[in-house]
């Protein structure tokens, strides 16, 4: 039997992060997850870390723990993210900090510390989360989309910097999915976005998992620096 993969997923307390964790666990993988709050679910092959991904010391401590217990990390999925929908004229600076801290600083820190562990074995897969709000330039999502534009640029440049270490870096850009992130967004706004897609429906967790499965396959070792949008957006 093949060696179990060691997979780190940020933001596993709920939503897509939890779904992905459960999928990998069902497939026999070892999953390390994190969020700022305790998880209300568990599994024998799952370890939950109480980590704010924007906190450098906490992220380092988590990766040290993974290194000590498993000696390696095969896959890191930068799923933790926060969204905010508001008109620019009504957006306070504290929102800028909150979004940039989690989405940009958090993605960077988890990617950096993961890559430091992955480079030892000259193998790794890093997956970042973007959004269709980037190519669709959605009004009301200026900050959220800007933070994810930064994530896309990080993805493309890290792909180049980490390629010599056998690490690929790619991103998936989901459409709206029924998660906490879009709760509170008016239904007509969601419908408007769906109408602009090539495939006119809400996304499903399975759609995101499918793109991630493609990126992490051993055969995808020649795929890096790419952003795949769901639903034909972009």
């Amino acid at each position, binding site marked *: 039997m093949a060696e179990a993969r060691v997979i780190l997923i940020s933001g596993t307390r709920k939503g897509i992060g939890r779904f992905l964790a459960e999928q990998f666990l069902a497939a026999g993988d070892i999953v390390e997850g994190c969020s700022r709050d305790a998880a209300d679910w568990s599994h024998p092959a799952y370890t939950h870390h109480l980590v704010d991904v924007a906190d450098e010391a906490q992220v380092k401590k988590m990766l040290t723990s993974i290194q000590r217990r498993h000696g390696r990390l095969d896959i890191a999925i930068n799923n933790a993210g926060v969204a905010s929908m508001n008109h620019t004229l009504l957006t306070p600076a504290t929102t800028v900090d909150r979004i940039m801290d989690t989405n940009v600083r958090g993605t960077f820190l988890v990617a950096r510390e993961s890559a430091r562990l992955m*480079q030892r074995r000259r193998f790794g897969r890093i997956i970042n989360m973007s959004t269709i709000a980037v190519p669709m330039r959605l009004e009301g999502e200026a900050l959220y989309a800007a933070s994810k534009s930064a994530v896309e640029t990080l993805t493309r440049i890290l792909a180049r910097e980490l390629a010599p270490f056998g690490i690929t870096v790619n991103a998936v850009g989901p459409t709206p999915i029924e998660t906490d992130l879009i709760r509170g967004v008016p239904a007509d706004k969601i419908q408007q976005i769906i109408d602009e897609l090539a495939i006119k429906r809400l996304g499903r967790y399975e759609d995101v998992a499918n793109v991630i499965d493609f990126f992490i396959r051993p055969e995808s070792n020649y795929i890096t620096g790419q952003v795949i949008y769901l639903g034909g957006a972009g």
Partner: protein
Amino acid sequence: MTNTPGRSEVLALVTAALAEVLEQNGTPSSEPLGEETYLIGRRAVIDSLGMVTLIVDLEQRIDEEHGVALTLADERAMSQKNSPFRTVGTLADYVVGLIVEEQGNG
């Protein structure tokens, strides 16, 4: 748990880390590695990517073996007039200095 390594221990760590980087690159050194081995410049035994790997490897070894978490390549290191990364010896000196400083703060 932390234990303070002396200069000779740090020198051994740097040399071992460098040997591993050269081994990984498939370019083991034909000459013995020591104080005077160049890490940057024309006579360097590694390229810039090798330097990145060396620094990461060294930080990890110091943390694992001595429980000290150092950041070797920060703005301060990069802005020094004489780069601490010139040779194995200068790098060992720099690491010893950082460890002393770190433990003074702790």
